[in-house]
């Protein structure tokens, strides 16, 4: 499983600060940070520790199996963000 950030994210970076495995991106200072509309959790790296859920001031993070229906899109979206990012990095390299 993985945790998932939904569209009500306000880009408060409290989740990034508490994440023990650094799986929430883009981080402050990254080239795509300013243009990102929300933060995303890398499902390949997330260890389901729950720390970000506690830290989020607007409750925008859910476990994938508890994702409310209206945010159903978000699971795929979080994964896609990292797929595209790694493609972009490979292209840039």
């Amino acid at each position, binding site marked *: 499983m993985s945790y998932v950030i939904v569209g009500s994210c*306000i*880009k408060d970076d409290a989740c990034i600060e508490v994440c023990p495995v650094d799986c929430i991106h883009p981080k402050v200072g990254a080239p795509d940070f300013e243009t*990102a509309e929300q933060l995303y959790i890398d499902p390949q790296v997330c260890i389901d520790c729950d720390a970000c859920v506690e830290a989020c001031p607007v409750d925008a993070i859910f476990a994938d199996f508890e994702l409310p229906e209206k945010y159903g899109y978000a699971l795929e*979206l979080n994964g896609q963000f990292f797929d595209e990012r790694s493609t972009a990095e490979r292209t840039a390299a």
Partner: protein
Amino acid sequence: MARTRPRVAIVGAGPAGAFAAACLLRARGDAEIDLFERLPTPWGLLRAGVAPDHQEIKRLQDAFDRTLKRGCRLFANVEVGVDVSHSELMRHYTAVIYATGAQTDKSLGIPGEDLLGSWAATEFVAWYNGHPDYRELQFDLSAQRAVVIGNGNVAADVTRMLTLSDAELKRTDMAGHALEALRESAIREVIVLGRRGPAQAAFTSAELRELGHLDGVDVRVESGEIELDGVSQQWLDEEGTFTARKNVELLREFAGRQARRDARRRIELRFLCSPVKIRGAGRVEAIDVRRNEIVRADDGSLRARALDDEPETIECGLVLRSVGYRAVPLPHVPFDERHFVLPNERGRVLTPEGQPLRGVYAVGWIKRGPTGILGTNKRDAEETVSSLVEDLHAAALTQPAAPDREQIDALLAERKPDVVSAEGWRAIDGDELARGRRKQRPRVKLASRSELLAAAAGSRSAAGSMDSAIT
């Protein structure tokens, strides 16, 4: 003994001011912070801007309220520049941080903009969110079609408010007067106009996606609208953001949908067209729009350029212009008239000569312009607060002439006997939440200054009179 605790006034209790207060408390636990707010309630656009159906975002209020419990004082219902001047603040505080935001809207500069029925979207937003200065506005919702100009999240918000059902609106904390007016709304169609193309739309994909999933609302995008021109396609492939690609994907999906005959209301998204004239005898009857094309400007940005076509006339009875916010100058503080911000370097306000104006700082939209989302203010506040903390550390700030808390308290007691403290705000908040519980709504807002002040005053009376304030 020399006084060492820094005293800081933050002017404006919106998200930028709230994040600055929290950040300063973390950085300098010894700071005495007073948060000044023009309205009787704090939290600015979190309360009066964020759409009422986005209650999850309003939860940020809890984090802001915690700052007030940690020693930051609130002086709401006090207008700096009117009730207390900048120079008076400088007499009482080591530093003043301006967090006044961008209080007005940009204009389109087209004929007919001031006709009755043509409004800044921000006026509509403030009205439905219960901002006390806007409650008397009368929006005529008797026409069948409204036109929203702009492609950002405010445009998306007002479009949703015009199309949600009464049952859905009742589940929000929309102000009562707006709920009543929208219940009677005859509007069946909202046309949203974007100056540029689908790839340049400023909506977040979350907001755009929402427009496509409203119950009983048909969202239409003509298939011709989503064929990208060469310049846009190249931009999207090479430089496009994740959000821009998602937006184009969503718009293509919308364009592929079958029209729904059973829809209560209809949203049409149109791109590459700019309003050129709002028409009507005394009030809005129609809007003329002209087609644009996308061109790459010398600075590399993608701009809309008007085509030579004849304008098209769209009949409508309501126009909401949502093309951005703009800050207004503050009395006795430098202002950059070109960029509509306080001239500053890392939050230190600068004199016209470019020197730091000792003890004066800026944060939020008045510092960087109206960009970013709520959390953007957190980083912005960290920057300003670190400048302030550096200056404190370097002993670069002057000790205020009247450094005792009691002195500013006495001045305010004389000028503004009805100042709303943190305790007063808690009473307002508690009152609104209690009213909400009775109506099975998240909150029922008190939308006039007199009601807000009466609820706040309840906190000052004996406990027994609290009950009467709540009912």
